């Protein structure tokens, strides 16, 4: 991670601190295979790949804490949603999850250094202050940018991507089956009386 922002590398927790927690669990991605056999792809089918990812439970917990600060308060989220949706998806590019883990560590390191505690210990408002003080709210998401730009690209925008491709966003957007979610072919036919959106 290129560090051109205020914080320095030595303010971040080490990878070892994160690895004191349990290693990342393997998940089956809830996705549909390209060219699956006829009749086998019903809603809820699983298994194109196993979710062998580099995040520990500690990483997932920090990511979940950030999600609760980034998402509107009406969206309830737990660590299983975050792990399944973020780390359970097919990695968009090689190395993406590694850099996401590094971004998680950068955020928690900044929280420790500047705010004196771990992200998961803070209120949602304080977590947003942490992100703001890193510059995450004002930078353009950039995969190979500054720490703040990478936190925005890998961490915040991964969280926003999985929210807006999930029915969890339906109440916010009025779209019951949002693009990216294989929610079947019922919602587009449903009348307004069955869902006032």
């Amino acid at each position: 991670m290129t560090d051109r922002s205020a914080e320095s590398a030595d303010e971040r927790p080490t990878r070892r601190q994160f690895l004191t927690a349990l290693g990342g669990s393997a998940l089956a991605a809830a996705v549909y295979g390209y060219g699956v056999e006829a009749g086998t792809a019903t809603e809820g089918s699983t298994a194109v790949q196993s979710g062998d990812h580099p995040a520990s439970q500690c990483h997932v917990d920090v990511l979940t804490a950030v999600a609760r600060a980034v998402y509107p308060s009406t969206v309830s989220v737990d660590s299983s949603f975050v792990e399944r949706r973020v780390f359970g998806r097919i990695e968009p590019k090689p190395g993406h999850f590694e850099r996401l883990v590094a971004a998680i560590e950068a955020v928690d390191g900044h929280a420790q250094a500047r705010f004196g505690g771990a992200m998961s210990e803070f209120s949602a408002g304080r977590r947003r202050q942490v992100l703001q003080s890193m510059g995450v709210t004002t930078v353009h998401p950039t995969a190979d940018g500054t720490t703040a730009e990478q936190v925005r690209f890998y961490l915040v925008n991964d969280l926003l991507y999985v929210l807006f491709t999930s029915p969890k966003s339906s109440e916010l957007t009025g779209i019951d089956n949002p693009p990216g979610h294989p929610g079947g072919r019922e919602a587009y036919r449903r009348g307004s009386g069955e869902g006032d959106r």
Partner: protein
Amino acid sequence: MTSTDDRTPTDADVCIIGAGPAGALTAYSLARRGHDVVVLEAGERLTPEDHHRRMEMWLRPNFERNAFWLDELRDAYTSTGEINARLNDTRVKAVGGTSLHWDANTPRLHEADFEMHTRHGLGRDWPISYDDLRPYYVRAEREMGVSGADDNPDGPLREEPYPLKPFEPSYSDSLFAEACEELGIAMVTQPKAINSEAYDDRSECVGYGVCNACPSGAKYSAEIHVRKAETEGARVVDQVQALSLEHDWEGDTVEAVRYAAPDGSEYRQEADQFIVACGGIETPRLLLLSKSDVYPDGLANSSGAVGRYLMDHPSVETTAVLAEPTRQSNIGWVSSRSDQFYGIDSPGPGSYHLTFSNTAKSTSGGAQLRSPPTSPSNVLDAVEDPSSEALADLANDPLNATTFGDGLDLPTTAGPPYPLSIRGAGEMLPRADNRVTLDRSQTDSYGRPVPSIDLSDGEHERETIAHCREIQKAILSELGAEVTGSSTLSGRDMSTHHMGTTRMGTDPTESVVNEECRTHDLSNLWIASSSVFPTGGANNPTLTIGALAIKTADHIDETL
């Protein structure tokens, strides 16, 4: 992505250049009849996992959607006409070709499209009729797995049911239908190569809603016939660039394709028969690049028609809002259309069709837009030309939000008001000045001149689309909606359909291929592409490309 390691030539009866729908269907059709087939494809082969990655690229505003295939230097071009060619937003160079991100709409052309000159004194007749092509349409619909209903009173005659049952109409279709009924406009089912039920070892549509990057396999892509062709023994070599075609001493037959491998090695693939299946831009370009002493203006170009008569489908959209819910963006595809205004004999100056929105609601990343408004290239465009629309696109995407929590920007809200829209695509007449040439001032990564696209609308297109916009507004007004916008042809982008640049005809002095899609000039050179269309009608071309490809393969089989 995966790739073939061995890219050296092998013995072949048939060499096909391009692994899009036309190349894949001809490859399969010939390989299953026992012929040795080699397919050369410039792009890479995608894995099933790559399709999930593509979906994410499509949905996140900060990825370039064409990054999975684009090589900026290899794929450079220039655009000199009034219409922005935007080639690299619309085509795909990969195994499967542009079908990797097509919308999979598969209407047939109409009977009159084949006889525009005889019936109306416009353009040129095709050397084949709708009746000639109809059995091949049937075969193409089966191969691609087309769903639909025979419910179109304004459509071409059918004698066979669609292979797959139709998708059910959307809720918003019922709103449009009431207005259309009042106006006497017939709304019908949109045929499409998306599985409404399991078909051909592929799943039914599960509603991902990102059709351009469908990860489920329910939408047809030419990868399917690439796989089938390989099962039948065809050899598909990816990541090789066809550089030129070489002919015999007299210029009667093609002897070899010269191509380059990724390591810089150059090879000659020989075969008995050659098929160029590189789409409406690269097909004429390859012929123009293959000029020789016998063909100083380009291979198979005695007529001078190679590259000329380029056509697309000019399209416009009228947007509106309604006080009652419209239930948009819960599915990715169009379910209903109207051909009421298709044909010169129909009301209006020229052919166009209408499609009714299911995706008018904004989504993160602009899922339904061909080019995401906040992709890195578009951000640069917005900075250079900060129009209010461009800046709004940037600001409204939650992935660019500047506040989090309850202050998070949303791509859209639950309403009211509720959006909806009607699109229309019309016919462009063939004109010699609309053309693909070689831009010798710029070269690609192989040192070859890049294609130059010169395309402009004429009066026929402007009048046709003006009528289309009036009808769109009339339907929306009848519906009680408030019209919020209506696009025009001014400053427009080229559509995704590139046709006409090696046109078919009986007269070798004004056409490039004959009724079998064999070039007039060289007896073993065939073209499988929308580039052979003498006129383009107003309907999506891929089913017709497939039908012609299957027909061409039959003719080639007879020669082997």
